Structures are given as structure tokens and as C-alpha cells.
């Protein structure tokens, strides 16, 4: 049995060796198809990973309370639902603190502002919040210090800068601590600069350009004393469902059901990835079309090969080959041809991914390899079976008399 398959494969390879150029050209379609599918999957996975990293960097075990009910439906992140949604205030924060299983509550008032140093003026996002934000959202200090509870109580006019805005305002972030920045007509002392978090691009907020101030100080830009969002940190992940449920019940007493959303990180991730999944599907479809074209190319060449080798088929039949032996023979050839294209395509995609990895976390996982090889074998079988059947059904005498 092993001898039989070895002979079939050996025989297929000797045929390819005699037709190197043709073999290569035929598998080119599969090569391109497999390479594009693998690349698309690699980039899709990379994108998901990138987004997951972004969320991860926000902090773990977080629950978001946002205005509007857009997220709840798992729909788009257009934010349309946020207009006319609930306007949270400090009373909500206090009530949410009393929930069982909550470790921290962080309210956030976010406003786009213009900020100036003595030499520069830059647009930025003001993030007015409590002192625990740095702990909850994994914001690490690089230079100076973060603001404290007492800064919140005293409404201190202090700011903590993201590293990017610090660089932008002061040439070099090392020079920022101790300097004064102006927002509107008010001066604030820079007490700290955060470590870089990344982010930005793909429409995500650039966390490194945020300016953090105590929420009490922030009331000067926020006369209604509202918060755009409130973050809850659960004691650990097992408390998340319980915290969500309690938060919902609590808020329902104060706001209409469709005016707010209580969601966890994963759900936002799901919403985002479902958008990318659709995108991925379209791209994979494009790959599938090139695979189809590649498959037809293989079928075409296999038909040519059957005709060219009619006499060889006749000889094999004269020596005792059964129909199924001939069928196997040609099927093995088309599968090998297709796998050959698939392997080179996979190799090519791997090289490209390796190259791109410096800039983007695209990667090839085991499932891409299985898909690449599986798909090319299946294409080899599907498009090889018709020519192989033609070969198997040739009558021995006609084949051996064929000139």
C-alpha cells in the first residue's frame, strides 16, 4: 500500500519535473489565492489583537456606563444614540460606589479644548476625573506625580499630561513638570507626565494626547456638573455580571431604560470585531475568487495532461491498472499541484507578514496554515476529479492505439 502511494507520488513529481514552467504557472493561481487568503486572515487577526490590546490597556474588569443605548443593541458605534442620552452626575457616582463587588468608580467628563504653553497652542482632550483613574485605567506616571484625593478636594489647578501633548507643548516632555499651561483663561501647573499608552489611528482616541485634571477643578468647564461616562472596576472578573445587574437596576430608578447603557469591555470588543468580521469576509471572498480561478486553471491543465498522456494511460491499463488506479493517479497529481501552489502561497504570505510585523501585529496562526493547506487540497480534489475521471474512463485499447 505504501509502495503504491509512493509510486503514484513519485510518478506525479517526475511529471512536474518535466514540465517545470507549466507546473509553476498552473499553481500560480492557487499561490495567489492562498497567499491573499492567508494575508487577509493574518491582518484580520492582527487587527483584532491590536484592538484587544487597546482595550486591555484601558484596564481590566471594567464596566462602562455610557449615555444612549446604541451599544446595548450591539449595533454601530456611531454615537447617535448618545445624543439625548442620560447626563450622569456625582450623585450617580456615589450611588454606584455602594454596589457590592465594585472596587472603584471613575467618572469622566471629556471635552475638546485648546491648551497653550508659553510657546505653543495645541488642541487636546480634557479628561476631568477622580484620582483613582490612574490606578483603574493602568495609566503609569513617567515624570513627576499624579494628582491625589486632596487635589480633588482642594480643586487644585493641576494637570497631568499625556506624553504626546507634553512633547508637543514643551519640545521635550522632560521639561514639562513644574511649568504652567493655559486652558481658556486659567493657568494650571503641570505636576506629572504619563508613560506612552499608544492608541490613535483607526479613529480610536489618542490616549497620549489627553490632559487629566481633578473633576472638581473641571467643573469650571462643566457648569452643569455632568459626566459623559462612568467606569466601574469590579473586584474581579467573576463579579462583572453581578455588578452590571446592580448598576442597571440602580440607574433605572433615575433614568429611562433607553437613555443609558451598562456594558463590559468584551461587548465593545465584540461590536468592533463584528464590524471587522464583515470586512474580513469580503476580503476572504476576494481570495476565494482567485482560488476558484486557480482551480479552473488546474482543471484545464489536467485535461490537457490527460490528452497528452493518453498513451501512457493505455500502457498502464495494459499492465493491469484498474480504472481507480488511473483516477488516483491523476487526482494525486492535481492535489499535489494545488498543494504546491498553496505551500508557496503560504510561504510568501509568511514572509510578507514577517516583514509587516515591525509595524503591525499581523500574524499567521495554526488555523491559517490548516486553512491554506486544506483549501488547496480540496481545490485539487474538486477540480482534479473531472479530468481524472476522464482519464479513468478511457478504454485501454483506444488509449494504447492513440498516436
Amino acid at each position, binding site marked *: 500500500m505504501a509502495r503504491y502511494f509512493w509510486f503514484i507520488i513519485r510518478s506525479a513529481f517526475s511529471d512536474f519535473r518535466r514540465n517545470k514552467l507549466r507546473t509553476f504557472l498552473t499553481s500560480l493561481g492557487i499561490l495567489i489565492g492562498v497567499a491573499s487568503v492567508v494575508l487577509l486572515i493574518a491582518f484580520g487577526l492582527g487587527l483584532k489583537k491590536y484592538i484587544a490590546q487597546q482595550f486591555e490597556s484601558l484596564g481590566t474588569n471594567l464596566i462602562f456606563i455610557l449615555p444612549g443605548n446604541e451599544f446595548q443593541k450591539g449595533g454601530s458605534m456611531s454615537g447617535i444614540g448618545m445624543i439625548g442620552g442620560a447626563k450622569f452626575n456625582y450623585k450617580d457616582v456615589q450611588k454606584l460606589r455602594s454596589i457590592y463587588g465594585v472596587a472603584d468608580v471613575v467618572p469622566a467628563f471629556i471635552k475638546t479644548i485648546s491648551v497653550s504653553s508659553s510657546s505653543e497652542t495645541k488642541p487636546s482632550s480634557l479628561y476631568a476625573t477622580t484620582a483613582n483613574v490612574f490606578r483603574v485605567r493602568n495609566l503609569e506616571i513617567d515624570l513627576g506625580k499624579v494628582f491625589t484625593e486632596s487635589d480633588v478636594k482642594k480643586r487644585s489647578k493641576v494637570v497631568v499630561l499625556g506624553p504626546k501633548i507634553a512633547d508637543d507643548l514643551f519640545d521635550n516632555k522632560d521639561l514639562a513638570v513644574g511649568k504652567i499651561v493655559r486652558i481658556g483663561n486659567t493657568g494650571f501647573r503641570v505636576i506629572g507626565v504619563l508613560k506612552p499608552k499608544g492608541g490613535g489611528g483607526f479613529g480610536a482616541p489618542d490616549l497620549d494626547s489627553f490632559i487629566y485634571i481633578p473633576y472638581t477643578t473641571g467643573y469650571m468647564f462643566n457648569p452643569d456638573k455632568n459626566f459623559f461616562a462612568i467606569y466601574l472596576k469590579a473586584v474581579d472578573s467573576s463579579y462583572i455580571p453581578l455588578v452590571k445587574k446592580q448598576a442597571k437596576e440602580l440607574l433605572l430608578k433615575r433614568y429611562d431604560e433607553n437613555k443609558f447603557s451598562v456594558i463590559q469591555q468584551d461587548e465593545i470588543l465584540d461590536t468592533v470585531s463584528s464590524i471587522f468580521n464583515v470586512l474580513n469576509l469580503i476580503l476572504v471572498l476576494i481570495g476565494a475568487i482567485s482560488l476558484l480561478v486557480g482551480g479552473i486553471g488546474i482543471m484545464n491543465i489536467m485535461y490537457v495532461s490527460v490528452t497528452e498522456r493518453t498513451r501512457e494511460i493505455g500502457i498502464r491499463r495494459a499492465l*493491469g491498472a*484498474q480504472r481507480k488506479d488511473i483516477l488516483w493517479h491523476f487526482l494525486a497529481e492535481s492535489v499535489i499541484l494545488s498543494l504546491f501552489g498553496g505551500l508557496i502561497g503560504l510561504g510568501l504570505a509568511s514572509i510578507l507578514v514577517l516583514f509587516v510585523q515591525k509595524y503591525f501585529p499581523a500574524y499567521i496562526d495554526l488555523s491559517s496554515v490548516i486553512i491554506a493547506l486544506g483549501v488547496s487540497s480540496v481545490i485539487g480534489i474538486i477540480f482534479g476529479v473531472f479530468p481524472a475521471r476522464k482519464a479513468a474512463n478511457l478504454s485501454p485499447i483506444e488509449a494504447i492505439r492513440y498516436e
Partner: protein
Amino acid sequence: MSIIKLSKVYKRYKIDESIVFTALKNVNLEITNGEYVSIMGPSGSGKSTLMHIVGLLDGATEGEVFIRDKNIKGLNDNEVSSLRNTFVGFVFQQFNLINKLTILENILLPTIYSRKQLKFNPEKRALELLSRFGLKGKELSYPNKISGGQQQRVAIARALIMNPDLILADEPTGNLDSKSGAEVLNLLDELNKRDKKTVVVVTHDKEVAERARRIVNIRDGEIIKDSYTK
């Protein structure tokens, strides 16, 4: 003991809707075990057609074919293929070796298609046949790298690898110079005398035909004479 028997065999080819060409007419032929028979006739007389029917490469349009007194009518394609594999060894005018396979692989080809567990070591036997036929050391060469005479001896080795009872040779010297032709014919003699194979040689050449003890003359698809020499 009869090894092959044809009874009232006709072979007709449909040329087009209205024209039917009869290549074999009422052929009755019985060959017994161990015979050396030549089938002689001019080109187009139906010799190859007859040989293909005897070798189970083709079926008769009418009449009966018996292998060892067994009518082959009831056999399916796989059974007929198996008989070709084990019962017959073919030698063709054009050698019919597969050029992309090595000499050794060509000789082994019938063993690959065998459905029964082989009772011998195929590589060992192939190498024995090669050295017997003066082709030692050629096993890894390719057919188009050796002479016509050598190719035909490879084809004979291939015909013998499954140790069949019947060797069918269709114009085995047709593409050879007289010296290599004589070598091949000597080999066929030897297969009959020493190996006790039944040998059937198809030829248009009287000299070739007369090496056999029995000559079957065929003309226009009919056996016109069936006689023993010497």
C-alpha cells in the same frame, strides 16, 4: 491444456452511421499451454486486433473468448484488469515504456497494480531480470537514454515481472535493426524453451514467423492457414 481459446470471434468497427468495417471474421483459435505460435499476415490484416482480444485489451464484437476454459464474458473491468496484470505479458513494437520513469520503475509498474500480496520481492526480481538480459547497471537510467534493443529487453523484463503464463509480442522486432531484432527473438525462444512460457508473436515477417513451431496465417481478418513447421 488450453490456455486461450477464441470461438467464432468477430470484430467490427463502426466507421460511420452506415459503414461497418469487419476487422476479424469468424476467428477460431486455440492455443495450448507452452506453445510457441506466430500470427502472420500483411499489414492491416487484423493481427494486432486479434492480439488485443487475446490479451484482454479489447473485447470481441461477437463470439466467445476463453481463458483456461473460462469464458471471460461475465468478468467486470476490474477482473479483466487483474487478468492483464497477472496472466499476460505484453511486448509492443513501439516498446511502450514510460519515459519519465526509470528503467527499474518501468519494470516494477505491473507489481504496483497487483491486487494480490506478491510472493516475491519485486525489486530483487527486477534486478535479476535486468542482469539476465544484459542490462545490469541500467536500472536508474531512463528509457530514452538506451538503445532500441535495450528498450525492448526492458519491455520483456516488464512483461515477465509478474511471472505470467502468456507472452504476447506484437511485431517485437519492427523497430529494431537486424542484430538487436535477432537478440530479442532469441530471448523469446528462450522464454518458451527454458521458462516454459506460452509465446505468441505477431509479425508480417516470414523469417520471424518461422521461428515458431506453429504459424497462423491471417488475411483480411480471416485465418486462412494454421499449420505446424518442422
